[in-house]
């Protein structure tokens, strides 16, 4: 590493782009969040009033609880399942490429098409899944039952995103030198011991990335529930982004929506930071 302040020249274009696409808009949001805006010329500084109002809004709090529950649930399903699938993969050969391609497909489908696909797949009248579940004698309708809506959304999210975890873990597994496995075999290690003491430590960095990506992305989910359930039945699948969008675009409540936005962003930053800090701390303790 060479110390070189000229490197800032190379970084400048990125800083400019991000300043335009992120800093200016975020400053605008912060600016809105402390004002009561009647029209372009009539504004009133209201301090933290909008923040207080947001934190007391029962619909915000309900959406927050649903959001945290949803994120916890999909992470709890997708991370172990992703590790399992990665371990089931052959490490090389033609089949490996075929599996990689199949796994990658859900990641490249537009999010609203994911919603449409599952709509078509899960509807009791025209969907394969809906019809199959109904044929088993289970009453199932994701548009009228909150439980069914949640089950369908979670299943859809697992379908959509487990591949990301699996591909990241596969990349991690593929990088483990065979000597580690040979040493473990000489020691007579069981499959579980190999996983626990050889594979898991090597997966640490990719798993950290996987959990972080899934955590932040599940916290900002919007399009798939918007298409599949529209936030319903009632408000049972209305998560933070959906509530915020209805406030910002539907009602043009600039102040409350801006305060909501700032709190929302801070929440994601906080959760990601907490996770990252705890991983780093544990890593230091182990080292």
């Amino acid at each position, binding site marked *: *590493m060479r110390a070189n302040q000229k490197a*800032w020249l190379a970084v400048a274009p990125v800083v400019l782009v991000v300043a335009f696409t992120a800093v200016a808009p975020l400053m605008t949001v912060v600016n809105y969040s402390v004002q009561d805006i009647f029209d372009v010329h009539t504004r009133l500084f209201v301090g933290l009033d909008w923040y207080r109002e947001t934190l007391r809004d029962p619909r915000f709090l309900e959406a927050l609880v649903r959001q945290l529950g949803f994120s916890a649930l999909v992470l709890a399903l997708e991370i172990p399942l992703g590790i399992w699938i990665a371990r089931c993969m052959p490490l090389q050969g033609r089949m490996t490429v075929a599996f990689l391609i*199949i*796994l990658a497909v859900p990641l490249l489908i537009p999010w609203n098409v994911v919603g449409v696909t599952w709509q078509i*797949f899960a509807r009791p009248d025209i969907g394969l899944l809906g019809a199959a579940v109904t044929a088993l004698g289970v009453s199932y309708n994701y548009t009228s039952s909150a439980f069914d809506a949640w089950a369908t959304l979670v299943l859809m999210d697992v379908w959509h995103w487990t591949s990301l975890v699996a591909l990241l873990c596969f990349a991690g*597994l593929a990088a483990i030198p065979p000597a580690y496995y040979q040493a473990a075999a000489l020691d007579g290690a069981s499959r579980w011991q190999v996983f626990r003491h050889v594979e898991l430590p090597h997966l640490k960095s990719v798993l950290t990335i996987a959990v972080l990506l899934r955590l932040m992305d599940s916290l900002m989910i*919007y399009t798939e529930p918007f298409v599949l359930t529209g936030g319903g039945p009632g408000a049972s699948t209305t998560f933070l982004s959906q509530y*915020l969008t209805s406030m910002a675009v539907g009602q043009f409540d600039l102040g409350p929506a801006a305060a909501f936005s700032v709190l929302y962003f801070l929440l994601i930053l906080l959760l990601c930071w907490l996770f990252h800090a705890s991983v780093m701390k544990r890593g230091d303790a182990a080292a």
Partner: protein
Amino acid sequence: MSAPNGKAHWSLYLYCLFLLAPLYWLVSMAVKSNRDILGGLELVPGDPTLANFVEVATNPAWYGAFVNSLTYVCLNAALSITVALPTAYAFSRYRFLGDKQLFFWLLTNRMAPPAVFLLPFFQLYSAVGLFDTPLAVALAHCLFTVPLAVWILEGFVSAVPKELDEMAAIDGHSFPFFFFRILIPVIRGGIGVTLFFCFMFSWVELLIARTLTASEAKPIVVAMTRTVSASGLDWGVLAAAGVLTILPGLAVVWFVRRHLAKGFAMGRV
């Protein structure tokens, strides 16, 4: 559970079946008429038709939206790679004032929910006269793709030994020659993977694309949310459009298939 280098475990086939079943259903809907779809369930389409695809391919509202989407996705990818490459090189090779903080700050942008940007984006892009153009969507998507591109490319550049830079200098090559003729060919796999990730965000995103466009630059994902006709929802055409939106993704994944595993390691495992 399979041993390393062994054969695929049977549960992997089961999982692939789970991944492919909804897609099979989408394709089977796409080749049926709306009457057949609502008429009853059939596992294999009895009377397949390409009418839905013909509708998407001949109706300008549909294929125009396709062109709009592809335009901003390509613009975004080109823009992201162009600005991210020198930055990734700088992060990988130099230490400078605030480099760690800058790198971390870039990544925090990836954590911002798109919904947060709805309010200001509309005003910002209207103010600079970009509203309802593909360039507006391409720029707005940079919010997420540029940090990701810097992150991935930094991993790939760091995997290139520094001796390569020094050898080029000793050989008397100028820095631009080294950068474009030596470094870029070496990390072309990484560039392919970065394109994959840019595509993976820009092609699939709906909320920002919907907010920044009205009629002129309406993307395919938005066109698909407005398919309710007089006779109700036309499932067949919707499914056909859905199938067509999957094809570019398949092309991209085919293109980078050899680099996929390494790419997901972000070059740094």
